């Protein structure tokens, strides 16, 4: 019988999720399994994701990869899967339950804290900074924002985060948000953009306002972000290992289905990259276009 592993993601069109999909596809090819990859339009659509999970269950899958938008809402369906003997592997974020046999994710809080450290270093430990975040309510949005804010608060008392605003991860909206922040805070020294769309928006906004001395720190990769890092418009960015997340998820799911032991937590890691190490093979491997 064909081995089929549906991946229910948090999103689809964003480059980050496409990179996760690429990793999953790679594993699928390598292990000769069939996968599908789906996710709702945005990270608020908790019930839509549950409908996707229902449809996936109807297909009698071998195992399921699941990136929960809400840590609890899907539990009844996951239990149903468990009863049917379908192993679940969580990816990107965990679920408040012991049903998933493994969780492959990035520690977003630690990663954002690293961004804060870099920001502090680059602006010289004091001054005003701002955050352009992608979402106010999604797990990743909250973790990255709070990871950054808490690190600044705890370790850098001379740095003031003047505002956190949200651009929905939309490049254009994030651009306008950045410009408004720059207008309101002429003395701003740095901005942290919490995902690819936000980071690119910050870069666009900064360049449209003609500011050149601002420290921009981004998150994730993508061609535009890599270019910005190379050209120095962006000081640096955090990258996760989305390809790795996708790959490890499929691999763990397959192993679990075959009755093998899988580690409960698979940390796919994160890195800070800048002009100096962007071509480092270890970094280049986790960056995507």
């Amino acid at each position, binding site marked *: 019988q064909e081995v089929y592993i549906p991946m229910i993601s948090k999103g689809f069109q964003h480059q980050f999720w496409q990179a996760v999909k690429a990793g999953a596809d790679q594993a699928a090819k390598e292990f000769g399994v069939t996968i599908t990859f*789906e996710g709702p339009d945005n990270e608020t659509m908790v*019930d839509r994701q549950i409908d996707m999970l*229902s*449809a996936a269950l109807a*297909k009698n899958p071998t195992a399921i990869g699941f990136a929960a938008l*809400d840590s609890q809402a899907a539990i009844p369906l996951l239990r149903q899967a468990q009863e049917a003997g379908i192993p679940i592997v969580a990816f990107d974020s965990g679920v408040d339950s012991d049903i998933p046999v493994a969780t492959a994710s990035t520690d977003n809080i630690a990663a954002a804290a690293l961004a804060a450290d870099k920001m502090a270093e680059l602006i010289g430990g004091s001054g005003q900074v701002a955050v352009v975040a992608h979402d*106010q*309510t*999604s797990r990743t949005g909250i973790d990255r924002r709070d990871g950054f804010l808490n690190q600044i608060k705890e370790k850098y008392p001379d740095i003031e985060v003047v505002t956190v605003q949200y651009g929905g991860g939309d490049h254009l909206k994030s651009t306008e948000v950045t410009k408004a922040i720059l207008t309101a805070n002429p003395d701003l020294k740095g901005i942290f953009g919490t995902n690819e769309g936000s980071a690119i928006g910050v870069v666009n906004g900064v360049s449209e306002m003609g500011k050149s001395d601002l420290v921009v720190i981004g998150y994730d990769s993508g061609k535009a972000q890599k270019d910005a890092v190379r050209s120095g418009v962006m000081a640096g960015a955090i990258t996760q290992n989305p390809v790795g997340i996708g790959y490890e998820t499929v691999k763990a799911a397959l192993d679990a289905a075959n009755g093998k032991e899988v580690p409960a937590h698979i940390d796919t890691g994160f890195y800070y990259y800048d002009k100096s190490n962007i071509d480092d093979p270890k970094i280049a491997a986790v960056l995507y276009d």
Partner: protein
Amino acid sequence: MSLANTTSTPSFLARMVNTGAHQKLLAFASLILLLIGFSIASPNFMQTSNMIAILQATSVNGVLAVAATLVIITGGIDLSVGTLMTFCAVITGIVLTNFGMPLPIGIIAAIGTGALCGLCSGTFIAKMKIPPFIATLGMMLILKGLSLVISGTRPIYFNDTPGFDQISRGSLIGDVLPMLPIPNGVLILFLVALAASYVLGRTVLGRYTFALGSNEEAVRLSGVNTDRWKMAVYALAGAICGIAGLLIASRLNSAQPALGLGYELEAIAAVVIGGTSLSGGRGSVLGTIIGALIMAVLTNGLRVLSVAQEWQTVVTGAIIILAVYADMVRRKKA
């Protein structure tokens, strides 16, 4: 000149089915065709569990679409259905979880909040003469923001209210007939649809709903207080959104404050696919339910067929156009 023969009024149910019965049955045909198509294409589609999943997926959208139907028949539009649903869910969450009130109070809070917010929109529209699009767009934004404000941008979980998730997930029917584990959410959708149909077909409010959409000025000239009735329709639609709020909160066992945007478009789409005209005056709840089912079957079927997500979108768009076109052609023939 001869006198028209007086025929007796058929029973309510017969009437419900009969009002343009022809048309409805034909709209039904698109749905049946979809079901048959997907069954042939995938052996996994026609399982009881998947049929129930489709119904479950229809429940929230269906209830919202019923609310939208009422408003659209008056010739108005309600863009706030989705965020109002969320707002009601959040209010219930606060009442039940933060204030620790008993379940019935939570239910009343949801429906009451919905009615009140609907009344607000209705007042903007009827009294302040703000176009429905703007009034409900404004409400949509206000409620979206307020949901985040009062929930502190965090989901509210109903873990302290045992049984809350049974509102939507439990199955009263399944308890009696174990082969038919239809979730209560679906039952509630059915009851809401039946009630709305009754209101539309058999009450004064329903009559004015159609009359307003048909020719508001004529109704006003007939001495009817059109403002008051319009407000009543929006309030009723709001109350129904409150029920949707309960359903979604129960389904997710949590009130998700950021949810709700985009639901308005799907609800309106279900209404229009179901044959209700956006210019008002005509429409039916039964049509809306069929419209909502068409959308849910389509979404589910394409997923079960493992169609790539980007193509799912393309195919959904194309089939919506085709389904409505088929309906048009059939209606013309009928």
